[in-house]
């Protein structure tokens, strides 16, 4: 395995969040009854013509600017010709030779914290096809054209990734970016964000790429990783046993965790691309580009850098907290109340307790049951030593389930930390008196038993003893 180098390039399809389709006025909303969102244009009736949705172009330009790419002053829609029942016109309208977004780049962070730049070859606009339906129709196949004509931005990377993990990191970064830009909802279950992976291997040190296989239509980060790993292992095994990799399109079967051949290069369609004579070239001028640039939000990398700089967070934490606009906003709202000096505490809580609770109950951060102001209320009580970090977790759970502020819960449950030295000493004395054997053992050198005494005192105080004070007093008493 270590003699081989893996080469991966991704083609990501991001469904643009326009209200209407790219060439018709039909709605793009997901989940409507079949063909209820298919107009005469979508159905490719005789005589109808496409009209470009300017919003789709604006979103593509926004993406281009966010990856430092050149926006083409002139781009052209072409026809990709092939027959399929879910392709009503018998061709897909797609930018081919002249895409709207040219070469750009994107930084990803690897597991070891290193930053790698991945090239983005191009991004182009195209329309999605419809769907074939097989269930509940007997031997017949149904066609649902609701999705036909939905705008897609196809983002093509350079073959710059060297492992499945890198590919996933890149895909996640694009996912973050398109949601930041509010040009794609990123919903992978509904197919709004999916990718094709081009995978090849070559002996380490060789410059020439190996023959690649293209794995189609991967719609989860986990599947991308598993499919690539399977495919890499398959190709290496094939090559090591004297075989050759054939250029082909493969499908990933997530049930069996394997890729299967779909069609070889020889069987590939001749798409007979040519410029679509129904659409004029898209002309974009400097003023338009600058107007779009002025609408760009703070981008993830900029936000992460600011978090690291202003709040003293690690690169990793800053990266996690800037992974979505909503998460970043939540975190900043907590810090705003708590104060920047306690940003690390806020970061730990947002990434820890809060994220676990959101994941566990499958709640979006914008609908969190503990609002940022409430969380900062809780963290304030840790900072002012009203409660310990451990008790705070208990309070958080109660806040999450009861929806009350931290102070109300601390009050009602009597969780306020005991900071009265006399009171803590009393409990310590009682614990020592009740455990003479452990005391003798401790004094004869079993240091580990210190924890036992801490536990006993905590148990007796219901966990409310101030940990630092307890440690200090206990040490003195045990001698």
């Amino acid at each position, binding site marked *: 395995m270590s003699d081989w180098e893996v080469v991966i390039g991704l083609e990501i399809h991001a469904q643009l969040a326009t209200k209407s389709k790219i060439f018709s006025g039909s709605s793009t909303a997901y989940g409507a009854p079949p063909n209820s969102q298919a107009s*005469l244009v979508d*159905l*490719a*009736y*005789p*005589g*109808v*013509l*496409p*009209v*470009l949705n300017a919003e789709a172009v604006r979103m593509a330009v926004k993406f281009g600017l966010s990856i430092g790419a050149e926006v083409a002053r002139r781009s052209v829609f072409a*026809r990709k*010709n092939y*027959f399929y*029942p879910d392709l*009503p*016109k*018998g*061709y897909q309208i797609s930018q081919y030779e002249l895409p709207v977004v040219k070469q750009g780049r994107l930084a990803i962070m690897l597991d070891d914290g290193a930053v790698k730049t991945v090239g983005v070859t191009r991004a182009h606009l195209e329309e999605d096809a419809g769907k074939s339906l097989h269930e509940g129709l007997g031997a017949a196949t149904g*066609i649902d054209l609701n999705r036909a004509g939905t705008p897609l931005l196809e983002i093509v990377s350079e073959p710059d990734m060297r492992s499945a993990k890198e590919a996933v990191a890149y895909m996640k970064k694009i996912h973050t970016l398109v949601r930041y830009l509010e040009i794609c909802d990123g919903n992978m279950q509904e197919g709004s964000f999916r990718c094709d992976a081009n995978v090849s291997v070559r002996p380490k040190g060789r410059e020439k790429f190996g023959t690649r296989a293209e794995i189609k239509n991967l719609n989860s980060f986990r599947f991308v990783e598993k499919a690539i790993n399977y495919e890499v292992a398959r190709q290496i095994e094939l090559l090591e046993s004297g075989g050759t990799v054939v250029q082909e399109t493969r499908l990933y079967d997530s049930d069996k965790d394997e890729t299967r051949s779909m069609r070889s290069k020889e069987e590939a369609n*001749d798409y*007979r*691309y*040519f410029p679509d*004579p*129904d*659409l*004029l070239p898209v002309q974009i001028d400097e003023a338009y580009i600058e107007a779009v640039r002025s609408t760009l939000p703070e981008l993830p990398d900029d936000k992460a850098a600011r978090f690291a700089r202003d709040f003293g967070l690690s690169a990793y934490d800053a990266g996690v907290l800037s992974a979505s606009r909503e998460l970043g906003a939540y975190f900043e709202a907590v810090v705003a109340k708590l104060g920047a000096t306690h940003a690390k505490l806020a970061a730990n809580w947002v990434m820890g307790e809060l994220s676990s609770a959101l994941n566990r109950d499958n709640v979006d951060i914008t609908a969190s049951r503990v609002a940022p102001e409430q969380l900062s209320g809780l963290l304030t009580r840790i900072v002012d030593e009203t409660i310990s970090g451990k008790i705070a977790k208990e309070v958080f759970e109660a806040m999450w389930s009861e929806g009350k502020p931290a102070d109300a819960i601390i009050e009602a449950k009597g969780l306020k930390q005991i900071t009265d030295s006399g009171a803590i000493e009393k409990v310590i004395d009682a614990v020592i008196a009740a455990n003479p054997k452990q005391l003798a053992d401790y004094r004869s050198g079993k240091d580990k038993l210190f924890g036992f005494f801490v536990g006993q005192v905590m148990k007796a105080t219901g966990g409310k003893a101030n940990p630092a004070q307890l440690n200090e007093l206990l040490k003195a008493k045990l001698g």
Partner: protein
Amino acid sequence: MLHNLSIGDLADRLATKQISSVELTRHFLGRIERLNPALNALITLTAELALQEAEAADRRRAAGERGPLLGIPLIHKDIFCTDGVRTSCGSRMLDNFTAPYDATVVARLKAAGAVMLGKANMDEFAMGSSNETSYYGPVRNPWDTSKVPGGSSGGSAAAAAARLAPFTTGTDTGGSIRQPAALTGVTGVKPTYGRVSRYGMVAFASSLDQAGVFARTAADAAIVLKAMAGFDPRDSTSIDTPVPDYPADLERPLTGLKIGLLREFFDGLEARNTALIQDALKIYRSLGAQTVEVSLPHLPLSVPTYYVVAPAECSSNLSRFDGVRFGYRCENPTDLLDLYQRSRGEGFGAEVKRRIMTGTYVLSAGYFDAYYLKAQKVRRLITDDFRAAFEQVDLLIGPTTPTPAFAIGAKIDDPVTMYLNDIYTIGANLAGLPGLSLPCGFVDGLPMGLQLIGPHFSESRLLNAAHRFQQATDWHSRSPRGYE
């Protein structure tokens, strides 16, 4: 007789209540019933609908509305989608297709109050120069029913010549309005590409297709074109520039007009034909115009260029006819491939298949550069030739066709000979220019056409020049025998 009156005269009679639209409509419906069987110019007659529309036009007029086309009957080429009415495009593929919407051209003329009598026969999917490729059989030329009327808008041309309606609509991709207008002795206008919306017009070759009009005079055509033309947000290739008042410009004098004679159009042209054009030039000179000879060196490449570009676009445009959503579907398909192959194999005729195959070939990997790309480059050169010519002259003049109408069956088995019929008309389509054909005399008792080609958006000038010619001649008022 009513059917010999101009649109202007009919509008006057409607305005002065000498006649109602219902009466006018009945008159033309009666003519169609009597005369169409020998011509086969109409595929679909919409008599009942026509009378309803005529009644509506009369009501609109009674309510005070005015308009040059309010209550005037017309026939649409069956390439235009008409809401609730079969739109066959001359093909078995769409024999069962009822359009669920109106083409923009149809909607605009409807809004102007024009009354649709029916739908005109045409070459299948507008592919043909003789109207013999129609699924509904050939159209016969009213001047001689053994002859073709030209194509692809043969039904529209024959109907206009036979006075079955005051005007008819057509489309012109390589000459499909001008060539049949010439062969049937009527006036036909192909506007600038982008002047009239293509929305709702079944596409043949999208970069060349343009809707236009057949009428007996340029003055009538001017009225109709004004109503048809204009920007349409549903057609991205339609151009947002104001529509001139064509009728108002008709009477301008031609003094100082510079007319260019296309040298390439006279190479090998028959002497009698050349003589007709020379006669026409004399008339123009007598009207104050100057004539000079100009050359467009790349123009002889028009036909081969066209027969790469048009089939390429058609091969893609006609992919939507797959038997899945509308149109012809073969019986009992065994699987998807069988559905496609038999639906298309049985639904399309020979000429359509020939062009789909040609187009598929020229777009294929390995041939694209040699054919499609090369043709696009030549197209650019031809366009540049025209541009250069229009720096010297105001409009170009020449014959519309090399010969008068030929016999039905004479060329149908020889595609290349058939394609050469469009040798004089294709250039304007490749360059997107407006063209007009008007009657200029007879050869062997059959009408011949004079063609005018102008710069982009010069329809006013073309109609003006044609109108002035028609004031000085009477070729346009000749009627085929039996249709007076």
